[in-house]
């Protein structure tokens, strides 16, 4: 059944998936630790201004100030410390908004895809209506109504993005529901909820897992966008989006204020999506 060639192919897939998984998980772990222990790790106070130290370049350039590794912004605040503190907001939004969105969206998608009938009609129409709103305008509108703040951002992401999960999970649940093993389970006398949780859910889980990590990346981006347009949390707390927004005004004099938070943001979003792909390969019994 398993010839030598087949084995090689499989272990190759696994090794490559493994590397991806470790790199992305490594970066995210680093970020989580930074967020958790920010006050102890950050070399400087992220809010402390010192106009004499404005726009200091990062450590390898001439004229850098010792202790300010990634330079300072126009107000003399330490870029590295602000990035580390910004991870708190970014990761909180990613985890909380991602998980809540996933729970709501996946549940509705599963119900619609498996129960079909009027449940599907209602949920599908809701998705259609929802997706007709332009998401960025919708989120700005929501924040305007709810008022800025961490909770508002999370609510906005959940309200806008649940359709992402619902659509995909619905399609997947529908495909699984047509399989013969579902028919066998029905003949055996399993109830609909039992079939949904025992037979369908485990087969949809890898997809949900990938979507969840993608959603976490998207949540980070949404938070950054809202910070960029000054609709995120109070301007006192450092956020990556806020830093990018501030850095933009001084891009020619101090590029580092913009570039370092941007790289962090990029790596984080990339890691989330790669983590999802890696986990999917781990989850999938066929590739395992």
């Amino acid at each position, binding site marked *: 059944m398993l010839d030598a060639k087949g084995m090689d192919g499989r272990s190759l897939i696994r090794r490559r998936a493994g590397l991806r998984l470790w790199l992305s998980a490594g970066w995210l772990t680093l970020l989580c630790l930074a967020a958790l222990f920010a006050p102890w790790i950050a070399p400087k106070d992220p809010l402390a201004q010192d106009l004499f130290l404005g726009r200091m370049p990062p450590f390898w350039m001439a004229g850098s100030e010792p202790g300010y590794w990634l330079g300072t912004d126009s107000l003399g605040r330490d870029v590295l410390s602000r990035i580390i503190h910004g991870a708190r907001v970014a990761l909180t939004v990613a985890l909380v908004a991602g998980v809540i969105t996933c729970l709501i969206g996946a549940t509705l998608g599963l119900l619609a895809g498996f129960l079909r009938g009027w449940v599907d009609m209602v949920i599908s129409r809701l998705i259609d209506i929802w997706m007709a709103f332009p998401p960025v305008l919708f989120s700005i509108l929501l924040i305007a109504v709810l008022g800025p703040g961490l909770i508002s951002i999370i609510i906005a992401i959940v309200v806008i993005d649940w359709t992402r999960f619902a659509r995909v999970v619905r399609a997947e649940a529908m495909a699984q529901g047509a399989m013969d093993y579902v*028919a066998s389970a029905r003949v055996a006398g399993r109830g609909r909820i039992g079939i949904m949780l025992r037979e369908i859910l485990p087969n949809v889980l890898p997809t949900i897992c990938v979507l969840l990590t993608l959603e976490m990346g998207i949540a980070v981006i949404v938070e950054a966008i809202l910070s960029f347009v000054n609709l995120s949390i109070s301007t006192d707390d450092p956020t990556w989006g806020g830093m990018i927004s501030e850095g933009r005004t001084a891009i020619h004099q101090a590029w580092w204020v913009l570039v370092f938070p941007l790289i962090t943001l990029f790596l984080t979003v990339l890691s989330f999506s790669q983590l999802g792909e890696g986990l999917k390969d781990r989850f999938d019994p*066929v590739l395992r």
Partner: protein
Amino acid sequence: MTYLSIRDLSVRLKGGPSLLRRVSLDVEPGEVRGLVGESGAGKSMIGKAVLGILPPSVEITGGQILLDGTDLLTLPPKDRRRRIGASCALIPQDPLTALNPSHRIGPQITDRLVDILGWTRADAEARAKALLAEVQIPDPDRVLRAYPHELSGGMRQRILIASAFAAEPKLIVADEPTTALDVTVQKQILKLIAGMQARHGTALLFVTHDLGVVSKVCQYLSVLYAGMVVEDATVVDFFAAPRHAYSAALLAATPKYTDPAAGLNPVPDAVIDAVRAEVAAFDRGSA
């Protein structure tokens, strides 16, 4: 005593055409009845109606399905489910999609026995092992711990057969159980099903489009066209002298592997027209 008796069963697409037209047939314990017909004749639909797994787009418009004397269609849904679950089983068509890829083989056989029929876990596991041995699977312990994708199609179909017999059902519906398999494996699987059925004394409803298969496994058969039973006969009588022109043409259309030069004999248009006219006359009569 008749175990399964279907009387005048009519099924149609909701708001659409009829799929089954007053189908009647009986299956006794220990007996195999073949359901034969071309694609779309409604042979699978009968099995699905009996097991209560018709798609939601289809409705039963009349008739009775008597299981051991009780009309399933008059039972409340919950009782019907319980009754079917306790006394019937399905051998599905495609072994590749009939096992849940996310669960190991063992639990897929035993969980039903434990959760629904109230067996102890130890009893269920012993039963699963004995059944795998009965369907001639080498090394049952390893197979019980395997995932479906680790096994071949023939192996999976053996497991599905074992699983169908697990709770000693009185009636099994086999929905084209060999269609998705290699011809070389088909024969073994047919032998296996026939042997198991005979040993356990199960009533078997065998859905197939292959008359060759019918001649090997069944004692009785119903030939269907457009959801109508055009012939109901014993296999011996049928192969000696089919009574209906359509079933005679169907029999003549079976390719002869022993004579490749003979070419194919499609069912003649005149026969199709005649049987279609019969169906139309039936629809006028029942309208």
